[in-house]
Structure formats: structure tokens, C-alpha cells
């Protein structure tokens, strides 16, 4: 086996080493250019074009890496089937034992580019962390949360954890804000008022649906207002706007907000 492996490799002269170095350098430069240029350009346009540009980054990087790999392999080993099986089999075995998790993340990274459960610019929740995907790397992705924290999550999570994607490559995502009112009010009036609160928000994507969902609770009624902001990045501002103006409008209409905790279950009658 060892002899087969040794025979598979070509003797590396100065010229070959130079070629390998050049291919590697070119690939690194191209990857850096792609990773810098496309996000820069994406931040200067709006709407779907921004998300298309951002999503192209990991795809192009994968293409560059595969291209560089295909150029380098024939310069290092004699590309016969026997040699390839021997070399990659050994490599796979070594990676499987020594760098199992790393290799798993690398493979998951390739799957992530293909299946696209998340792309740059998407708002996702993975393992309880919610934020905007700012970088899809080879091994891990990076999220920026609403608190402006940068969180790095290995692609490996893809195998075990659900990925909740709020906008799935588009510029818009649904936001929901809750209002809790005491019982004994005109529900139709509240629903109508909340509907208008959404329709008059300057941040609303008005062509998308607005919905008011009411749910009766022991302490009163919970109203959930669902609507879409124009841009996913405005979601927190949008939710704040809906909340503040919704509250003001409900107060103007004389509604009372539920302020107490749920009522305890009645005491069982004394026997």
C-alpha cells in the first residue's frame, strides 16, 4: 500500500513547485477578490439583486477551489484510476480519524452551497441563534445578531439541527408583533385598527399581505399583527414602529392592555 502510494506521486521539480505555487496564489487571490468585491457591490444595490450577489460568493469560491484542485492534482500525482483511489482513499481515512468534525463541516459546506439552506443576506436561526448571514465560509458560516454580535457556526450543524430561514434568498420576511388586551373590548375594532397600523407604516411592503390573528386567553385576548417590511434588514425597526404606533392607536381608542399574569386555576372546593 505504502509502495503504491509512493509510486503514485510524481517527482516534484522546481518548475512543478512553481506552477503549484502560482495556481495556489491565483486561487487565493481570486477567492479574496470575490469575497471582497461582491459583498461591497451588494451593499450598493437593493432588493433581490443584493441577495443574488451575496449568494454568489460561496458558489464562486467553491468553483475556484475545485478548479485549482483539478489543476494541481495532475501535477502532483499520475492521474490514473488506481492512483486516485489509493491517494484519496488514504486521505479520506486520515481525515476521517484525525479531523472528523472538520471534514464533516467541509462536506456540509459543499452541501450548503448546493442545497442553499442559507445564503449571505438570509436571516436564519440555528441552534437558538438568530441573525443575518454575513459570510458562508468553507468550514463555517457567520451570523450577525440583532445585538451586533458575530456568531460563527460550523456547517456541521446542518446534519443535526433545524435551520429556520426567514427570507430564503428574498429581500422580505414576515414580522409579527403581539398586543395583549384585557377582555371586554370590541375585537373587530381592534383588528381593524391594527390592520391600519400596519398599512400606515412607512416601512411596510404594502403589496404583501397583512394579517391580524386573535387568540383568546384566560387573561384576555392576544392579537398578533403579521406584516412584511420593505427590506429584511429593517425588521427590528419595523417591529418597533408597529409596536409603538399600535400601542398609541389602541390607547387612543380607549383599549386597556393586559398587565397581570395569567389568573391561577380556581381552588378546588374544600371537601
Amino acid at each position, binding site marked *: 500500500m505504502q509502495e503504491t502510494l509512493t509510486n503514485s506521486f510524481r517527482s516534484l521539480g522546481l518548475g512543478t513547485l512553481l506552477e503549484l505555487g502560482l495556481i495556489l496564489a491565483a486561487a487565493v487571490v481570486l477567492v479574496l477578490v470575490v469575497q471582497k468585491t461582491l459583498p461591497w*457591490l451588494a*451593499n*450598493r*444595490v*437593493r*432588493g433581490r439583486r443584493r441577495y443574488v450577489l451575496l449568494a454568489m460568493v460561496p458558489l464562486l469560491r467553491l468553483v475556484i477551489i475545485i478548479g485549482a484542485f483539478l489543476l494541481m492534482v495532475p501535477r502532483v500525482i499520475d492521474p490514473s484510476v488506481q492512483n486516485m483511489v489509493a491517494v484519496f482513499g488514504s486521505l479520506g481515512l486520515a481525515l476521517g480519524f484525525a479531523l472528523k468534525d472538520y471534514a464533516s463541516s467541509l462536506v456540509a459546506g459543499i452541501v450548503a452551497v448546493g442545497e442553499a439552506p442559507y445564503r449571505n443576506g438570509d436571516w436564519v436561526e440555528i441552534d437558538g441563534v438568530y441573525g443575518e448571514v454575513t459570510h458562508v465560509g468553507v468550514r463555517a458560516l457567520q451570523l450577525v445578531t440583532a445585538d451586533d454580535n458575530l456568531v460563527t457556526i460550523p456547517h456541521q450543524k446542518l446534519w443535526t439541527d433545524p435551520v429556520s430561514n426567514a427570507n430564503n434568498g428574498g*429581500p422580505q420576511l414576515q414580522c409579527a408583533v403581539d398586543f395583549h388586551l384585557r377582555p371586554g373590548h370590541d375585537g373587530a375594532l381592534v383588528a381593524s*385598527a391594527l390592520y*391600519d*397600523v400596519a*398599512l*400606515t*407604516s*412607512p*416601512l411596510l*411592503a*404594502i*403589496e404583501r399581505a397583512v394579517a391580524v390573528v386573535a387568540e383568546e386567553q384566560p387573561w384576555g385576548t392576544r392579537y398578533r399583527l403579521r406584516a412584511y417590511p*420593505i*427590506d429584511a434588514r*429593517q425588521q427590528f*425597526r419595523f417591529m*418597533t*414602529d408597529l409596536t*409603538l*404606533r*399600535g400601542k*398609541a*392607536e389602541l390607547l*387612543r381608542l380607549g383599549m386597556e392592555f393586559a398587565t397581570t399574569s395569567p389568573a391561577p386555576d380556581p381552588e378546588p372546593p374544600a371537601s
Partner: protein
Amino acid sequence: MDTQDPSEELQLWELVPLDDYALPQTPAARAAKARWVSLRRLFGGRREDVDAPAKEETDLHGLWAEQRDGLVMPIDWTDGAEALERRLTKADAGQSVCCVVGPPRSGHTDLLECWAERWVVRCIEPPAHEDILSGGRDWLDAWPVDAHRWVLPRLEHCWLRHPAGLALVRELLERASSGRLGRGVIGCDSWAWAYLRQVAALPSRAPLTLQAFDGLRLATLFRALVGPSSTRPVCFRNAVTGKAVLSIDGEQDGNGGSDLQYLAARTRGSVGLARELWRGRLRAEPHTDSDSGDAEAAKEEGPDAEGTTIWLAAPPEDPVLTSGRDDELALVLHALLLHNGLPDQVLAELLPLPRFRVQGVVERLTAAGALAEMPDGRRRVSAAGYAAARELLRAQGFLVDDF
């Protein structure tokens, strides 16, 4: 106007259903240049004019207000009002209310006011902002239902984008559609119309609009706007290219070519906007003081072209409106366009921004030439800033008008 024949007038002022509005197209060369400039701006470049202008801007001076008034008189809407009356008479059977929609500064409000004056129709002023928000119905209850006909030229001033600002206009539209208000005409700005379509039940009848003014229509109009005080032939020349744009003489030759077509496309067919931009570009040479022609240019054009030469400065560059992450500019511009102008204090109430931030943005936009304060106290998007503002809002995914 007096020299035109009726068939030409009819073509100039044509009221058509909104769906039939024919947006003027930008000449191909101009469109390519605009795309190139836009691309350069995207990459942070600045516009560079490599062509030497036929007349340096510094060699020219602006005209006095009286001179401008003589060369670009206010639009006489009488023919337009007659066209509207013909249209209403033709299609009025069984319909209680008709809507006339137009883009900002297109002049549809002036058209309706002229029509109201000419046919003695009751003109209704919009309610005060306080009345809109208070939820009262006094303004509606005082409607002159016994009037033969009425006109509400500014529907865009009858509502506010506020949770309490829609009830009045919904009630108004409901009463108007049901016929309880009698027969009337409602005028509305195109941006407000686009918004109200989403939040209120508009009359089912397709709204009318003034057909877009293309290059040919603008040429006809600008000839008609030259006052009777100009006894000599007038030639409007492009100061950049040196070419004649429009000649006003006995024969009325020339149709403006690509310059006026470009103006029509840039203003998206809005006649009022085109007039304002045309008026703002007028220049004259100091020594001629707009009374004598440019001899050399006139010789090139032949003996008929001798007379007064008015130079047209390069079209004003669009104000640079910060794009990208500066959402506050877009919010302010959108609110102003939806309401066709707002007083500063009302604007601040409608936006999810602190008052001082709104004031800061308004001042920045005003300094950049994108906003202008109107005599009625409202802040509006300026004629020079309209195209850039619309493009910014469209690019950012905001609701825009149909024009």
C-alpha cells in the same frame, strides 16, 4: 395657442384612461449614456463631460423673471378643460364620480380648477390636518350635495399615512362611489392614488389622466408658451451641442428632436414638470441680452433663423441622493411624494424617526436641491429632484406611482 388649429389642440390635450398612458421613451443614445453614468456612480466615479460645450456656461447668464415669463408663459388650461368636459360628457352616463389622476407637478390640479371656473363647478378645498386626524365628519357633512357638480382637485390632501388618517378618505370615497355626494370629479396625485388603491375602495370607473407629453407635444406647447411680446423669431439652442432645439417663427418648423424627447422621458410625460425644467434652463449671452441672435449660428441655419437666440443650459444634474444604508432619506422622500408635500411638523408625525432627525434630513435634501418649500408651507420634492427621488425609491423597493 391662438395660432393653432382645433385638431392640433385636441391632440395636445388628450384625456385618456390611466392604462393608456404612453410613457415617453428616452432616445437610445441618451439612455446608454445615463446607464453609463449610473454605473460610474455605483463604483464611486464622478461624472465627466468630455465634450466641449458650444457655449460655456460662464459665457451665459440667466434671464430676468420677466424675460422668462415672456418666453415661457403659464400654461393656459382652457383647451385642456374643454377636452375634459368633452370627455366627461361622452362617458358620464350613470356615473356619479370621475377621477382624474396625474403625476406630481403635471398640472392636473390646475386643469381641474380651470374646468371648475369655466363651467361654474363648486370647487372643494381639502380638510385641515387636524380634522383628518380627529376622526370628525364635519368636513364631509358640509359637502354641497345640492350643487349641480363639484370638484375636489386634491384628494391627496384629504388623508394622512397615519392609523387615524385613513377613515375620512375611506368615508369620502364610499359616499362618492355610492352617489350620495352627487356628481363630481376627484383629482388625485399619482403617488397618493397608488397608495389609496391599497388601503381604500376607489371608484370602479377607470381614472382619467392627461396623455403624456412626448417630444412632439412639448414642442407644440413650448411654441405656444412664447408670449406675444417676442416679435422677432426665437430660436432655442442647446448650449452644449450648439444645435437648434426649437424655432419659433412664422413657419413653426422643427419638432425639438432628441432634446425635447429626452426632456419628455426625463419628466415621464409630465407637462408641468417639463415646463419647469425648460424654464430653468433658459440662458442668454450678456452682450445680446437675449435680444439679438448669435450671428454665426444663425448663418449656419440660414436666413430664416435670424432673430433672438435663447440658449438652453445643460439639463440640471440629478441631486445626489445618498443610497445604500441611508434609509432615512428614502422615508422622508416617500412620505412627501405620497402626500404631494407636507408641512414639516406633520411630516415628523408620520415618520418613525425622532423629530430632529427628520429636520436634519429635510435640510440636507433641501440643500441638495431635492426638496423645495412651497408658498403654502408644504415641503415638496423639487422639479429637479423628482427623477432622482423616484429612481431611489423604486430601487429600494418602495411603492411608486404608475407614471
